[in-house]
């Protein structure tokens, strides 16, 4: 393998790699704007200029060294761009000499000539590559005292993406993304020189189902999300690692929270599942239902309507009702968004305590959602996990039949809305003698259920999902509930962390909703069996012990390998280098 020397350090790299790639694999980041590991090389920002040379050869062909034994290096007369220069054996690269530093400063000065002073109103501020580099690689002086160029500041490229011409540094990452990854080549540079800007071709708009990823890869704030614009400054939000519950792909995401409300979702790099991307549908829909229309607390229906009760009373009410029926008259439905931990505990409740095998999950298939990139037709985020725990699935149109054919008297639904406007299911559910529900949102079921318990969404729980390729992925809570308040501590956003009782900004809803495994454990306890789980991790450890496929897994292992595949936990896939273009840098 070729060996190259970077700033005096020898590194080995695959032949054919560019300097910037070889460096990245060895933990050295060369400043760059336009290069991105998932896109083609454009080489137009010139930020990655480095000094490249080779050792001088004597006429006899031996490598020359100076008096002290150091190699004599012949530098190329001009600097080279590290993103487009392939490595060759014996190459010398210098990134810290005066010539390179001057070039970096000049490129920064050049880019900043027409860059507006928008940081205070720019959504990118705080995680902007240009801000970061201005701080690191620029002397901070401009010799330009003319009036800056003005361009259009609010052009909607499509339903989700807003373009600000003045902030654009013409790196072309967005154009390459649209062409190469989104397969929608509608963006192009127009005009020349300092008038250059980006437009969509006439009669087209950039409305690909993955369009919002350009917002993340844009090194500056030229592209903003129409859905998010101005909702919060990045430093006011907390970002916790999670997994999108929108479909069975399970894209890795970060959940941005302020005032205990999710303001945006953004992709988290995982080379095996979603690379650097996620779909717009996930981004724009999978937080709204977490923020609004939630059920908080437990309720028991009596003659006076719904009465607020504490959780234990609700568990006892469910236990009392269930005891009145034969075990196979009790049916349990788990939602496709429940974690493995939730489903495992519910299964334990069904098989060991209630002794019913009428435990099902309802399939949610949406062929219109699927595509050949990330989105899958199976909208149950954890369908493979639920199947791996041995739970049968039924189709939505089989629910009503299932209830009548099996003479079901009592129904317990956790984390799903089974009615969804379907008359047949509605009348089947109404014919039951007892209907208990653990649910996230107000829905048709909450209007008729006898006992309702507010339950925790993916954003409030810790657990694992097993995705469509059987990859088990760990997610952590992002918003605070009464249940997880103590462990959330420093994971909250700055404002939430330091607020006091009388501050208006800390009044964001801290809901009383419990993870489903805790609800199942509560019901089991009311029926006289104590599972003894303390936290999600203890449930997962139990899964690892008892369910084949999960052996050798643990939360720590899942975190460090960004997920593990069922049955292959001992042979994790290699992740390669995980590139972070630009993220919020604290302090």
């Amino acid at each position, binding site marked *: 393998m070729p060996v190259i020397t970077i700033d005096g350090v020898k590194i080995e790299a695959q032949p054919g790699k560019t300097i910037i790639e070889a460096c990245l694999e060895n933990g050295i980041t060369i400043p760059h704007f336009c290069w991105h590991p998932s896109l083609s090389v454009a080489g137009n920002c010139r930020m990655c200029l480095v000094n490249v040379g080779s050792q001088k050869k004597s006429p006899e062909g031996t490598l020359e060294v100076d008096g002290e034994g150091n190699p004599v290096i012949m530098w190329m007369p001009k600097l080279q761009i590290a993103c487009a220069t392939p490595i060759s054996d014996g190459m010398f690269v210098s990134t810290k000499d005066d010539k390179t530093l001057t070039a970096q400063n000049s490129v920064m000065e050049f880019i900043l000539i027409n860059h507006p002073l928008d940081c*205070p*109103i720019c959504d990118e501020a705080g995680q902007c590559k240009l801000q970061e580099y201005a701080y690191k690689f620029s002397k901070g002086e401009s010799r330009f005292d003319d009036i800056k160029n003005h361009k259009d500041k609010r052009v909607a490229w499509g339903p989700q993406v807003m373009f600000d011409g003045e902030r654009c540094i013409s790196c072309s990452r967005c154009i390459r993304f649209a062409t190469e990854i989104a397969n929608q080549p509608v963006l192009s540079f127009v005009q020349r020189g300092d008038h250059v800007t980006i437009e969509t071709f006439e009669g087209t708009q950039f409305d690909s189902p993955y369009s919002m990823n350009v917002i993340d890869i844009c090194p500056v704030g030229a592209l903003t999300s129409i859905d998010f614009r*101005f909702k919060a400054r990045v430093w006011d939000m907390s970002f916790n690692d999670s997994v999108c519950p929108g479909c069975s792909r399970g894209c890795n995401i970060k959940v941005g929270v302020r005032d205990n409300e999710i303001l945006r979702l953004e992709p988290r790099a995982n080379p095996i599942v979603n690379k650097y991307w996620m779909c717009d549908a996930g981004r724009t829909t999978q937080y709204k239902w977490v923020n609004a229309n939630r059920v908080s607390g437990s309720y028991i229906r009596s003659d006076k309507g719904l009465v607020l009760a504490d959780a234990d009373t609700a568990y006892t009410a469910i236990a009392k009702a269930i005891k009145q029926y034969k075990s196979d008259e009790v049916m349990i439905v788990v939602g496709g968004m429940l974690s493995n931990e939730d489903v495992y505990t519910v299964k334990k409740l069904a098989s060991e305590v209630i002794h019913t095998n009428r435990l099902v999950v309802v399939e949610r298939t949406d062929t219109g959602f699927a595509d050949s990139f990330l989105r899958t037709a199976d909208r149950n985020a954890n369908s493979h996990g639920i199947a791996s725990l041995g739970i049968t699935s039924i189709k939505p149109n089989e629910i009503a039949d299932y209830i009548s054919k099996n003479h079901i008297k009592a129904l317990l639904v956790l984390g799903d809305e089974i009615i969804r406007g379907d008359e047949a299911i509605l009348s089947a559910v109404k014919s039951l003698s007892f209907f208990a529900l653990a649910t996230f949102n107000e829905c048709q079921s909450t209007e008729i259920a006898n006992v309702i318990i507010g339950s925790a969404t993916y954003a409030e729980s810790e657990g694992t999902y097993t995705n469509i390729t059987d990859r088990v992925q760990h997610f952590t809570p992002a918003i605070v509930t009464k249940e997880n308040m103590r462990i959330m501590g420093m994971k909250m956003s700055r404002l939430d962390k*330091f*607020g006091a009782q*009388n*501050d*208006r900004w800390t009044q964001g809803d801290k809901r009383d909703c419990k993870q489903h495994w805790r609800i199942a454990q509560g019901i089991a306890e009311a029926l006289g069996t104590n599972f003894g789980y303390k936290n999600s991790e203890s449930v997962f450890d139990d899964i690892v012990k008892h369910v084949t496929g999960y052996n050798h897994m643990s939360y720590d292992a899942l975190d460090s390998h960004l997920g593990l595949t069922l049955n292959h936990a001992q042979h994790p896939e290699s992740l390669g280098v995980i590139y972070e273009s630009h993220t919020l840098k604290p302090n």
Partner: protein
Amino acid sequence: MNVTTNTAAQRLTFWEKLYLPEIVKGLVSTLKTMAKPSMTRRYPEERWEPLGSYRGRPVLVQEESGERCVACGLCSRVCPALAIEVRAAETMERDKERYPDLFEINMLRCIYCGFCEEVCPEEAIVMSKDYDIVFHSQEAAIFGKDQLLTPVARLQERLEFLRQYK
């Protein structure tokens, strides 16, 4: 342990021990001071007008076209006491596309340090001359935009001071 030697009482001179001459001395001092010009004022009827350098409660500068603030949240970030909450919104009407939909300062938290004024890129929040800040409840101590917005004409002296010394 009680000290019984060289006490204050033992150190008094003969004349001091007589007591009356000391009273007279005191009265003379009082009479002298009565004749001097007074150092106090009848607040609140007579109010003191501070100079431009004074750091009274922070206020938002209002121009004819609206507030200067662009809701960047830097004041909120820098405030050591976490007194400020800003929430931004977008407007199509003005040429500044961003404005504070909500701007609140909790005056129970504010320590009048003036950091918010110093960090503001728009010179939109400045320290006023207001010093008599009273309220009867914790809720009333949270000042909203209605109490914070102050016409720029009334802040001229402070803005002038900032231009010279900031």
